[in-house]
């Protein structure tokens, strides 16, 4: 499969509000994601990162504008790696079956459509030869890798990752890194929600801090300074941050 080059879209969030029930989850979120960027979104639990993704996917009733600017004449391929799949572990479903259900039209019980390259996608995430394993019997990290593999079929122009590294071991992290490199080389735009700030510092080209509002937005080297991070992970930005400067969690995140 040849990856088209430079077909990643730009994304514009303009004053996006999201309120569920009585709770404001996103408030006046304005962000722009450049075509081909590795744009990380960081923030505390409940900060609205997954909600931002749901709004982008058109699955949350937001106000404001979210616009995808595609370079070609039509929209390209969007891939999504969810934070988790709720899954009935006893289901008789192999890894290949799972990919087939996601990626092909031909009923998955007739077997995988070899032309779609499930084998290569699994190889790219270090799961070569594990296509016949039962999906429900995989470890958390293995399942995470399969979720990454499905996002590669067909080759994406925009890939949206919701904490893809949570269960990955060191080899998994290396694989993720080479995946990012490959996708970037193909011109894919990458929107990446991540809580591991060290990885963001290493791999992202831009980072936004999100805790209901956008607290900062810029290159990781400048943005992930200890104060910024402290702001982000404390409940009330700035003023309280001083008082809470001794919070161990925040300090660990910042270091």
């Amino acid at each position: 499969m040849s990856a088209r080059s430079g077909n990643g879209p730009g994304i514009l969030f303009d004053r996006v509000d999201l309120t569920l029930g009585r709770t404001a989850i996103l408030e006046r979120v304005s962000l722009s994601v450049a075509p081909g960027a590795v744009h990380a979104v960081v923030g505390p639990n409940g900060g609205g990162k997954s909600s931002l993704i749901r709004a982008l996917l058109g699955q949350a009733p937001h106000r404001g504008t979210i616009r995808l600017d595609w370079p070609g004449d039509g929209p390209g391929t969007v891939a999504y790696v969810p934070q988790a799949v709720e899954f009935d572990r006893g289901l008789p479903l192999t890894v290949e079956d799972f990919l087939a259900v996601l990626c092909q039209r031909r009923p998955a019980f007739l077997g995988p459509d070899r032309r779609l390259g499930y084998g290569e996608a699994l190889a790219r995430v270090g799961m070569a030869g594990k296509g016949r394993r039962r999906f429900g019997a995989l470890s958390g990290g293995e399942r995470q890798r399969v979720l990454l593999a499905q996002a590669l079929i067909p080759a994406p122009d925009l890939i949206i990752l919701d904490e893809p590294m949570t269960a990955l071991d060191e080899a998994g992290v290396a694989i993720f890194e080479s995946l990012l490199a490959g996708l970037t080389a193909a011109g894919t735009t990458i929107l990446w929600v991540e809580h591991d700030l060290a990885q963001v510092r290493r791999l992202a080209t831009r980072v936004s801090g999100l805790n209901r509002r956008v607290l900062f937005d810029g290159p990781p080297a400048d943005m992930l300074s200890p104060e910024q991070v402290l702001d982000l992970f404390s409940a009330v930005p700035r003023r309280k941050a001083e008082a809470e400067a001794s919070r161990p969690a925040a300090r660990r995140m910042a270091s």
Partner: protein
Amino acid sequence: MSFETLRALIQGWAGAGLLPAGLTHGFLVNALLSGLVIGPVLGGLGTLVVTKRLAFFSEAVGHAALTGVAIGILVGEPYTGPYASLFGYCLLFALLVNYTRNRSNLTSDTLIGVFLSVSLALGASLLLILASRVNIHILENVLFGSVLTVDDRDLTVLLVVALGVTALMLPLFNRLLLASFNPALARVRGVPVKGLDYLFIVLVTVVTVASVKIIGAILVGALLVIPAAAARVVATSLRGFFLLSVAFASVAAVAGILLPVQLALPVPSGGAIILAAGLLFLGALLARFVTRGEEG
């Protein structure tokens, strides 16, 4: 080819000793044909019912058929096949359950429990009011199935439903499954999750109603559940799951129709079919215990 020629053909083979002698009887040929038509469809659809956790729902829709029949008799449809009321009421029931489930914070088992009881109460009350008008055997047929009274009209309904459901289920199989794995991921891949939800409910309902004549209102939901459950117990891949479920449902349907006649047992067809499915399920469980021990 009309049912008439097909029936003559099978009766001919039975007369020549190629098939069980019972099949020289036209009514038994009809019964066998209906089992062969609906068995595989119930088995195939059942894999989705089990995966999407709609077992209780499909039981409930079957029970709603009882009320549908009562309404049919009330409005003067023929006792032997009040299809308009059956389809109408059961579809209304199913869509109402699904609609309410999407708009309440109740889990679906609670909600189905409520709808099922109310619907049964309505059906039972109607039947008691109608008691003077109906023969008690009609009630027995509705409850437990009467495959030996299947006529060409019933066969036509079965065939149309079976073909229609298959034509929709096969191309949409992956999407129906994906919608229940992860709706967000499904939507990204262009699956209209809500729409398919409703479509699937309609498919289950239509197949259920078409099978009431053979299996009966009490047990019809079970043939969507037991073969798929048995297949799930022993299968290791989706292919095995689907094919075994189709095979189990077909075998149960055919065995449940032919065996009581061959053995001259006074068992209603629905009961025999579900007993056969139950035996297959038991066998599947045993096979699993023997081959895999207690790994859960």
